C-alpha cells in the first residue's frame, strides 16, 4: 500500500529528475528548448503536488499570488531587452532571496502557533533566512550597478572587511541565541544584519567583476532554496537548490579563471576603480597609433580569406549587432570565411555575447569560444574588433605590471591585420591602456560601432 506522503515524494522526485534533464538539455542549442520544456513540466508537477498537499486548506491567496506573479514575470520576460539580461537576472535573484526570507519567517510563526519548534528546525530557519537576506540585498545592489542607478565603481572604505567580519559574527551569535530562546525579535534582528551584510558585500565590487558577482548571487539563490528545503524537510527544494547552487558556483569559477582573478580577491572587492580614474590622458595615449578609414577596412575584409570578428559589450551598447549581421552576410557572399570569437567574460554575464549575437540572427555555429578559436588567429587575415578591449590586450601576456597580467586573452594580435572599431582612446572596463593599439599590424577605425558597421556594409556592397 502506497502512502499518500510517498505519492507526494514520488512526484517531487519526478520533478527533480525533470530539472536535471532540463539542465542537461543545455549541453547543445539543439536540445536546449526541449530541456527548458522539461524543466517547465517539472515545475508544473511540483506546483500541482504542493497544491494538493493536505496542509494547504485554502486557495484564494495562493491563486491570487501565483497569478499576480505570473503576470509580472511574463510581462518582464517579454519586454526585457537582451542587452539588459544581467539586470533581469539580478532582479530575479533578489526575489528568490526575499521569498526565502519570507518563507523562513512564515514557517517559524506557523510552527510557533502550533508549538512544534525544535532546535534543529530553528537553526534551519535561521540559516534559510540569512542566506536569503544576503542574496536579496546583494542582488539589489548588483541590479543597481548594472542598471547604472549606482556607480559601477567599487565603493571601498577603511576597515570594511573588519566591519563585515564583525557583522557576520554578530549575525551568527544572534542566530545561536535565537535557536536557544525562540525569540522572534532576535530572528528579525539577525535578518536585518544579514540584509546590511548583503549590501556591504556587493558595494565594493567593481564593474569589471560584475559577471562573477551575478554568477555568485545565482549560486546563493540556490543555497537559499536548499536551506528552505531543510526547514521544510522537503528533498525537492534541497536537491533543486543544490543544482542551482553548484551551477552558479561553477559559473563564478569559470568567470574568475577567465579574468585570472581569485574568487577571494573578487569578493574582497575594489578592482577596476582607481586605474579608471588615471586613464583620461588622451594626448599621451594617441601617440603611435594608426587610424584607418572604413573603406580601408572594407578593402582588407573583402580580400581576406579568413576573417574573425571579436565583439564586446561595446557592441551591445551601440546596438551594432544587426549591422554586423549584414557585414557577415555580404562577406559570406563574397566567399570570405567569417567567424566570431567570444571571450568568456565578454559582456556582463556568462554567455551574454552569444545571446546578443543570436538575437541578431547570427547562426551559432560560426560563433566560437576562446579555447576553440585561439589557435586560428595566426592564420587569420583580418580581425575586426567591435567594442572589446581588455580581452585582446597583449599586456596580459607580456607586461607583468599590468593589472590584466595573467588573464587569458584572445590572440587577435597574431593575425595579419587587426582593425579595432573605437569611439575614442578611452581605456577598457578594467581601466587599462591597450598595448595592441600600438602594434604594427593594428589600425583603429574611429567612430560609433553601429555607424562604422553600417558604413562598412555600404562600402562592401559598392565594391
Amino acid at each position, binding site marked *: 500500500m502506497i502512502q499518500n506522503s510517498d505519492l507526494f515524494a514520488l512526484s517531487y522526485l519526478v520533478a527533480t529528475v525533470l530539472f536535471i534533464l532540463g539542465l542537461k538539455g543545455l549541453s547543445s542549442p539543439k536540445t536546449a528548448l526541449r530541456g527548458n520544456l522539461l524543466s517547465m513540466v517539472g515545475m508544473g508537477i511540483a506546483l500541482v503536488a504542493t497544491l494538493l498537499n493536505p496542509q494547504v486548506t485554502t486557495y484564494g491567496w495562493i491563486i491570487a499570488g501565483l497569478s499576480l506573479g505570473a503576470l509580472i514575470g511574463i510581462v518582464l520576460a517579454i519586454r526585457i531587452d537582451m542587452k539588459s539580461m544581467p539586470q533581469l537576472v539580478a532582479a530575479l535573484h533578489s526575489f528568490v532571496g526575499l521569498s526565502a526570507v519570507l518563507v523562513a519567517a512564515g514557517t517559524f510563526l506557523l510552527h510557533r502557533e502550533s508549538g512544534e519548534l525544535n532546535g534543529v528546525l530553528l537553526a534551519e530557519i535561521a540559516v534559510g533566512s540569512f542566506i536569503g537576506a544576503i542574496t536579496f540585498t546583494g542582488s539589489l545592489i548588483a541590479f543597481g550597478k548594472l542598471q547604472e542607478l549606482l556607480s559601477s565603481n567599487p565603493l571601498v572604505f577603511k576597515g570594511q572587511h573588519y566591519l563585515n567580519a564583525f557583522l557576520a559574527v554578530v549575525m551568527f551569535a544572534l542566530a545561536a541565541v535565537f535557536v536557544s530562546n525562540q525569540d522572534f525579535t532576535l530572528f528579525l534582528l539577525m535578518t536585518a544584519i544579514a540584509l546590511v551584510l548583503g549590501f556591504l558585500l556587493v558595494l565594493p565590487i567593481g564593474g569589471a567583476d560584475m559577471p562573477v558577482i551575478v554568477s555568485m548571487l545565482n549560486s546563493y539563490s540556490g543555497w537559499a532554496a536548499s536551506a528552505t528545503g531543510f526547514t521544510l524537510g522537503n528533498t525537492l527544494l534541497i536537491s533543486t537548490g543544490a543544482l542551482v547552487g553548484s551551477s552558479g558556483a*561553477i559559473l563564478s569559477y569559470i568567470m574568475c579563471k577567465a579574468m585570472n582573478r581569485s574568487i577571494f580577491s573578487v569578493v574582497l572587492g575594489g578592482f577596476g576603480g582607481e586605474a579608471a580614474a588615471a586613464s583620461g590622458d588622451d594626448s599621451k595615449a594617441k601617440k603611435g597609433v594608426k587610424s584607418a578609414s572604413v573603406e580601408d577596412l572594407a578593402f582588407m575584409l573583402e580580400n581576406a580569406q579568413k576573417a574573425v570578428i571579436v565583439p564586446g559589450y561595446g557592441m551591445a551598447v551601440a546596438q551594432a549587432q544587426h549591422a554586423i549581421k549584414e557585414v557577415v552576410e555580404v562577406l559570406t557572399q563574397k566567399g570570405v570565411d567569417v567567424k566570431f570569437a567570444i571571450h568568456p567574460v565578454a559582456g556582463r554575464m556568462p554567455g551574454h555575447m552569444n545571446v546578443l549575437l543570436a538575437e541578431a540572427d547570427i547562426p551559432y555555429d560560426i560563433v566560437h569560444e576562446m579555447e576553440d578559436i585561439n589557435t586560428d588567429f595566426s592564420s587569420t587575415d583580418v580581425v575586426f574588433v567591435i567594442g572589446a578591449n581588455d580581452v585582446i590586450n597583449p599586456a596580459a601576456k607580456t607586461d607583468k605590471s599590468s593589472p590584466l597580467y595573467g588573464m587569458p586573452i584572445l590572440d587577435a594580435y597574431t593575425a595579419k591585420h587587426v582593425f579595432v572599431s573605437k569611439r575614442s582612446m578611452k581605456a577598457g572596463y578594467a581601466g587599462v591602456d591597450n598595448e595592441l593599439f600600438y602594434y604594427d599590424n593594428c589600425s583603429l577605425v574611429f567612430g560609433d560601432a553601429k555607424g562604422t558597421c553600417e558604413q562598412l556594409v555600404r562600402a562592401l556592397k559598392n565594391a
Partner: protein
Amino acid sequence: MESMSPTMLGLTVFVLSCFVGYHVVWGVTPALHTPLMAVTNAISAIVVVGAILVAGHAASGTENFSMSLIALVGFFAVVLASINIFGGFVVTNRMLAMFKKKK
C-alpha cells in the same frame, strides 16, 4: 537499523545533488551560459513550495490576527517566487528560440 533523521536524509540528498549539479553544469555549452542562469533562476523559485505551504496553511486561520499576518507573508512569498518561475522560464525560452544554425 534505525532510520535516519530528516536532517541527515536532507544532507545526503544535498551532497549527492551537488555532485549531480557539478557534472551536469560542466556539460553545458558556454554559449548557453546566460540561458543556464535564467533557467536556474526559474527553478530556484522552487521555494514557491514553501511559500504555498505557508500561505495555504495560515490562511485557514485568518480569524486570528497572527495567522492573517502569516498568510500575508506567505502571499508575498508566493508572488515573488511566481515572478521568478514565469519570468525565468519565459525569458529562457525567448533566448533559446533565437539560437539558430547556419542555413
